[in-house]
């Protein structure tokens, strides 16, 4: 398939060259499968095979694009797409800067992260995996929900500036398993991200669910008092907060526009906890990486924060063009964000629950519907979900109703960090709005942050 894709893109490139126009071509193919569970049944079993082509035409400082869903056999339609983009660009107004046209200095082909065994898992295998995880855990009242999403994803690009192509294909899976009480409305969840089929581990998912179920079925839930708590965040919550930090913290274009909680003068300063190290590391295959960006810039390990010191902003090509900055190779569908592990030896939820503690600790594995309250201050808000626990200092464990946290990310990843777990894992942050874009963030399993305020506490689920 690779050859046919590259051959088609080359044919389109030659067509554009013959017309005397300047274009870049971005190709995306997905073969997506999603088995969705609800109320202990498969509520939906779906697949989509889609090919998208986006043509961007350049004319001096002008730029316009045309996108289409198409098939590789419809070369004439794609040529018409080039014609349309080139017609559009004649009528747009020039930018105040010169937009860069992608140039690939050499062919970039990366198929190393494609596992056909994962991409082509059968319906029966996916169902079998789910059954293995939840066997015996469902009851008349405790119902299974969740998804098994897997597929293959190909991104390819070429431009009239160079005959060299860009081609990346990967396989991915995202598994999310929820057990929820249909009357009491509590929910517990366990999740997994896989880049290869061998990454899938039903036993690990099951163990976490069993632990949470034990407490949610045996302990009486409570509305916990408002106030300040020492909080241990789980992988999902950490990944979500890192995503937001990356968005309103490290993006140079947003900083220039005033949306960042970090400023240029913060570069080189200690802004976060010394325990906090955060990098964009495309060498980590678990992050479904791009080792070259869409403008041909090789992507290497890029430190964002090292031991609390803010190192650099990331610059997308268009922002770099507009603000006269050097692009940093970040014009890719997603970055390979990795937070370094710390020193705390905690490999499982069971380890955390057994750990001795000198104060009450609120465990929040997941933050629901997080949003930015104040980007300049880095303030976000979100609610706990999917298996929060209050670990009392006397060793007992209480199930809390969900609570709301409204907090600055500069505090969450700042000096209030007590410890960070040594072990890290990929947390899948993929969404399927638009084109498939498998994404995960490498995060510590747990992170303890002291003295954070709970601003709202539910009186029920």
């Amino acid at each position, binding site marked *: 398939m690779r050859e046919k894709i590259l051959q088609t893109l080359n044919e389109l490139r030659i067509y554009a060259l013959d017309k005397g126009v300047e274009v870049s071509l971005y190709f995306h193919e997905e073969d997506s499968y*999603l*088995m*969705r569970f*609800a*109320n202990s*049944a*498969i509520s*939906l*079993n*779906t*697949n*989509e*095979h*889609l090919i998208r082509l986006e043509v961007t035409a350049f004319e001096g400082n002008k730029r*316009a*694009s*045309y*996108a*289409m*869903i198409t*098939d590789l*056999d419809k070369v004439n339609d794609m040529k018409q797409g080039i014609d349309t983009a080139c017609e*559009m*660009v004649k*009528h*747009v*107004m020039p*930018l*105040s800067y010169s937009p860069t046209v992608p140039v690939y200095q050499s062919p970039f082909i990366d198929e190393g992260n494609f596992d056909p065994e994962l991409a082509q898992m059968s*319906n029966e295998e996916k169902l079998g995996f789910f059954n293995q995880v939840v066997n015996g855990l469902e009851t008349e009242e405790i119902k299974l*929900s969740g*998804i098994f*999403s897997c597929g293959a994803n190909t991104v390819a690009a070429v431009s009239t500036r160079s005959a060299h192509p860009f081609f990346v294909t990967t396989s991915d899976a995202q598994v*999310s*398993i*929820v057990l*929820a009480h*249909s009357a009491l*409305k509590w*929910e517990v969840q366990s999740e997994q991200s896989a880049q290869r089929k061998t990454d899938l581990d039903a036993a690990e998912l099951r163990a976490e669910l069993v632990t949470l179920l034990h407490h949610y079925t045996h302990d009486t839930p409570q509305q916990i008092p408002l106030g300040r708590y020492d909080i241990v965040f789980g992988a999902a919550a950490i990944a979500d907060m890192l995503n937001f930090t990356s968005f309103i913290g490290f993006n140079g274009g947003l900083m220039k526009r*005033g949306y960042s909680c970090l400023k240029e003068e913060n570069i080189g300063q200690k802004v976060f906890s010394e325990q906090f190290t955060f990098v964009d590391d495309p060498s980590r295959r678990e992050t479904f990486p791009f080792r070259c960006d869409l403008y041909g810039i090789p992507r290497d390990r890029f430190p964002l924060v090292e031991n609390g010191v803010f190192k650099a902003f990331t610059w997308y090509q268009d922002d770099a063009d507009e603000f006269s900055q050097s692009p940093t190779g970040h014009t890719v569908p997603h970055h390979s964000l990795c937070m370094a592990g710390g020193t705390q030896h905690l490999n499982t939820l069971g380890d955390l629950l057994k750990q001795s503690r000198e104060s009450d600790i609120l465990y929040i594995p997941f933050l*629901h*519907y997080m*949003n930015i*309250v*104040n*980007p*300049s201050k880095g303030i976000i*808000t979100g*609610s706990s979900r999917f298996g929060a626990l209050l670990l009392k200092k006397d060793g007992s464990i209480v199930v809390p109703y*969900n609570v*709301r946290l409204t907090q600055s990310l500069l505090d969450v990843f700042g000096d209030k960090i007590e410890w960070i777990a040594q072990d890290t894992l990929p947390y899948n942050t993929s*969404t*399927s*709005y638009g084109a498939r874009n498998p994404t995960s963030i490498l995060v510590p399993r747990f992170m303890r942050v002291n003295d954070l305020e709970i*601003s*709202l506490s*539910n*009186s029920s*689920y």
Partner: protein
Amino acid sequence: MIDQIKQQIERLRARGATYVDTRWYPYEETNSLLMWNGNLKDTSSSRESGIGVRVLYKGAWGFSASSDLSNLNALYDKAFDNARVAAERVTFPVRLAEKESIEAKFESPSRINPFEVTLADKVAFLREMDRLLDQPGVTQRVSKLDFRRKQIIFVDSEGSQIEKVITDVFAGLEVNGLDSEGGMHERKFNPPRRGDSRGWETIDLRYFSENAERIVRELKETLQAERCPVDDRSVILLPGIMYLQTHETIGHALELDRILGYELAFAGGSFVTLNDFGKLRYGSEKLTARADATLLNTPGSFGYDDDGVPAQDNLLIDKGILVGAISGRQMVEEANAKARRAIFNGSSGANRATAFYRVPIERMTNINIDPGNDGTLEDIIRNTEKGILLDGDRSWSIGSNREQFHFGTEAGWLVEDGRITRPVKNATYKGATVPFWNSLSAVGDRSTWEVCYVANCGKGQPNQIMQLGHGVPVCRFDNVRIGE
């Protein structure tokens, strides 16, 4: 093509499928322009076509979609196979509420097709807006236009064949500025729907110009303002935030798939139970809410949903009491069976998919609050002793069962003894859903009622974006925590 679709549907029926439908999109096209600080950053168009097939087999759904129409056999077989495997894990076999077989056409009202307007005219509009927004104190200014047009042909195994052509225009303005502490503030104008159509004619230069000047003025007020105090006050919500309050804490909470637990793995559930219908006092007696897909000028109106059910105007909350839900054919059957009573009398016609390659799910139509008898905005302010007037969505976060919320707004003005005293910045409010709606103490009259739109409501797995509307009046709620 339609004959081929019908043949495929019959073929799967012969294999044992109890229901099959197909949504064929001959085309869906978009055109987007975005001007940022004078730069036309985005000029893009798209066109796609394809087909989505939904199969019900032994009580389970299978779905498959493709843009390749050259091998319909394989596509329909894949959808059937997906249903066949899903049927291995069924707990409540899917049943579909009765509906009539319909042959119909629907075209959304549009006098000027936005795809026939020249790019030069669209750019000229944006340039004029950018010029008006380019004022001292404004650090970022954004003007945008977004046009969508699609043709959908729906065919099902029950004899329905429906053609829809839907056109929508979305336009918006936004300004941002920095206060003396370096804090970013924003003010937007997303025009409420006026008139009776949805085409390019809705782009009224004079109306946009007036509001461009207004949002710049209000941004400057905010930049100079003191911080919003932490306090308990009456909050008076203008339509620019009232629509979102309605969307998040009535609309999503009353989607029947959420209530039945079909969104628990992702979007969340609802605090509402089947036992609540006809009993739960959701809000004060001043609250009457409805799902009205028959309004002419909003993206929440579509003629027929993707189950082939005609658009309807249904009560959701009647004088404070919960009476209805947002539903499709499948969920009402399951809800009635599980409740062991007939809560719902058929589908409310709200099953929609965002594209040919997504499966229909319960989506809001136009979730509206009826105007009340508490007068104009000025009357409500005059009758408020200690309050805050809020407008513009800045941030929103809602509990997983829609039981509580936290909203940030773009603009806020304190109200003392019946008059507006001063603007405040970083205004927020929060609450628990049912107590909040029960604190509803004033509902503005028709003069305060505006139809706002949502262009990007997200839900479902695989994820879907949907467009819809909210007709809402000015409302006042008492004893609400602000400023946190």
